[in-house]
């Protein structure tokens, strides 16, 4: 006798089919808006001479963190330009930038809510576990019917994959604010919002920054994988090299990814949070 198989896969397909029938027109509109914005951004950056962009990025990295990282950025991006991977790098950076922005815009508020409300936390945390442990490739499949092949589907999957640390670390940072400081803020008659913006968020800032750093790194890794659904950029270079067995070209693109990762990681890790405090 054959065992009865619970048709989870069939159910999920039904749900997604239902959603594609009724929601896809909306997601396609969003998709085309984001895609044209992304194209415009990339074109605009590519219009500027690469050396100027590289210098501006190096200076920004220096201002955000320190001089050593500025020099590293200058040399690293210079090498990428020299390898002829500048265009692909700009595309990848744009994808990472947009994915990270969306992830932070959605993730930080969710993190705040889960820190302040145990109810929300009970719902959000299992969802995050699911998002983080599900193999990332699986998200690629349903992204296509909603956003079509291309960079926006990549941004969507990247968000799903990269958002959890932003939520978790925001929640953790706020929960770690010492109880006696909360009590003091209460004793002076602070509202929930005043406590949040004047005490909890500034004190949680270093932890939230660590979360954002994680989000950026995960975005980068996912953006490369998302080349499989047409994200382009450095991932596209690697993908093409795999299909044609271009070992050298594959490694060159891989090295470019490593350079980008190092620059993003070191810069965001070294952002001086007490500089942020002084404003708050």
């Amino acid at each position: 006798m054959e065992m009865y198989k619970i048709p989870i896969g069939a159910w999920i397909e039904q749900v997604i089919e239902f959603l594609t029938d009724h929601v896809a027109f909306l997601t396609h509109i969003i998709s085309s808006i984001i895609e044209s914005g992304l194209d415009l951004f990339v074109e605009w950056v590519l219009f500027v001479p690469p050396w100027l962009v590289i210098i501006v990025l190096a200076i920004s990295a220096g201002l955000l963190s320190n001089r050593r990282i500025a020099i590293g950025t200058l040399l690293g991006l210079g090498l990428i330009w020299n390898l002829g991977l500048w265009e692909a790098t700009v595309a990848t950076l744009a994808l990472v930038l947009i994915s990270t922005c969306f992830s932070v815009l959605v993730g930080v508020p969710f993190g705040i809510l889960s820190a302040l409300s145990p109810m929300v936390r009970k719902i959000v945390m299992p969802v995050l576990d699911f998002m983080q442990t599900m193999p990332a490739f699986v998200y690629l499949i349903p992204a296509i019917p909603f956003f079509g092949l291309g960079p926006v589907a990549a941004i969507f999957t990247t968000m799903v994959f990269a958002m959890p640390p932003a939520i978790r670390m925001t929640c953790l940072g706020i929960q770690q604010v010492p109880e006696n400081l909360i009590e003091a803020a209460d004793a002076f008659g602070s509202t929930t919002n005043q406590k949040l913006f004047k005490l909890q968020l500034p004190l949680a800032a270093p932890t939230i920054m660590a979360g954002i750093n994680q989000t950026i790194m995960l975005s980068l890794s996912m953006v490369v994988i998302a080349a499989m659904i047409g994200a382009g950029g450095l991932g596209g270079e690697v993908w093409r090299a795999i299909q044609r067995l271009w070992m050298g070209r594959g490694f060159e693109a891989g090295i470019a990814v490593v350079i980008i990762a190092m620059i993003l990681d070191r810069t965001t890790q070294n952002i001086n949070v007490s500089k942020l405090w002084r404003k708050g």
Partner: protein
Amino acid sequence: MKLRVKDLYKVFGANPEKGVAAAKKGMSKDEIMSRYKLAVGVNDVSFEVGASEILVIMGLSGSGKSTLVRCINRLIEPTAGLVEIDGIDVTKLSENELRLLRMQKVGMVFQNFALFPHRTVQKNVEYGLEIQGVPIEERAEKAKNAIDLVGLAGWEDYRPENLSGGMQQRVGLARALASGADILLMDEAFSALDPLIKREMQDELLALQGRVGKTIIFITHDLDEALKLGDRIIIMKDGRAVQVGTPEEILTNPANDYVEKFVQDVDITKVLTVSRVMRKAISVTYPKDGPKTTVHKMKEEGLSRLMVVGKDRKFLGVVEVKEVTAAIKRGETTLEHVMDKDVPIVHPDDNVGILFPETKYPVAVVNDENKLVGIVKRGSLLSGIADFGGTDGNV
């Protein structure tokens, strides 16, 4: 009355009203715990505090004193009873009214300072005003005044982490003062400081109190501190107020064994005044008395020193038997040349503690009008202390 607390109960756990009812029937804290799984934090406490009074709530850890003080501004919600500030029942306030009360009427100082590490001293002190929406310049000025008041002028732009413990607590005090609250709740405010700094802060708090006249509820586990600061003291045990009284009442008339045990450890010399141990200066001498008369008086009394007084017993100085005998040998007829005018004297209200450095007894006790009101002999000092139940025994 500035603050009135009546029949206050705080019971922690589910269905706390059951615990209150049980406590009202006279069930003990332990019984309530084992029968209802409820923890009684504050058990039937009532007291009143007048304007500009310092009330000290004293007890060991777990006695409910911190819970009690938090019931006053409802950082902990009382289970039953009344808390009245300026005639307004705090327990009935809405959330917004309660926030206004905390902003404007009741300041709080914490044991571990609880300063905001991301803000400078100035910004910490401004906090209460900032959340009230006070305009920037006014807020800066008020904060500056509070910082000056606690003696931290010049440290405005430092972060708390760069300040010593004593200075950090001054910031805590300034933060509570800046908003203009006239009731200060001080929860073990000086307990985390080392003894020297602690004493200095106590003195400054008293001096400050003299200037600004706040109503202060001061929590401590240190009886010496309670006796020094308190106009009145409440001693708490297991959530109950076991005795309420002035420092002297508590020392001389402990309500039960528990209070007595506390009092045993007190350094009496810090609270006993000179007037309690001095004796009448029955025999004195006058400047016009000749040296021979004086020596005679000394022999009669068995004294080696005698107080010299003028008209109306104005204190003039002290003569020593050795000097007077020498004067007789020199053939002098008055005490003018042998009288020591520059001797240490004490006031009747001084603590007896200041007597011990004196090596020459008896010591003259002189009042505000410079009249000799008595003398303290070494023997009477020690027996006076002994009457109070003794000290550590290291006098």
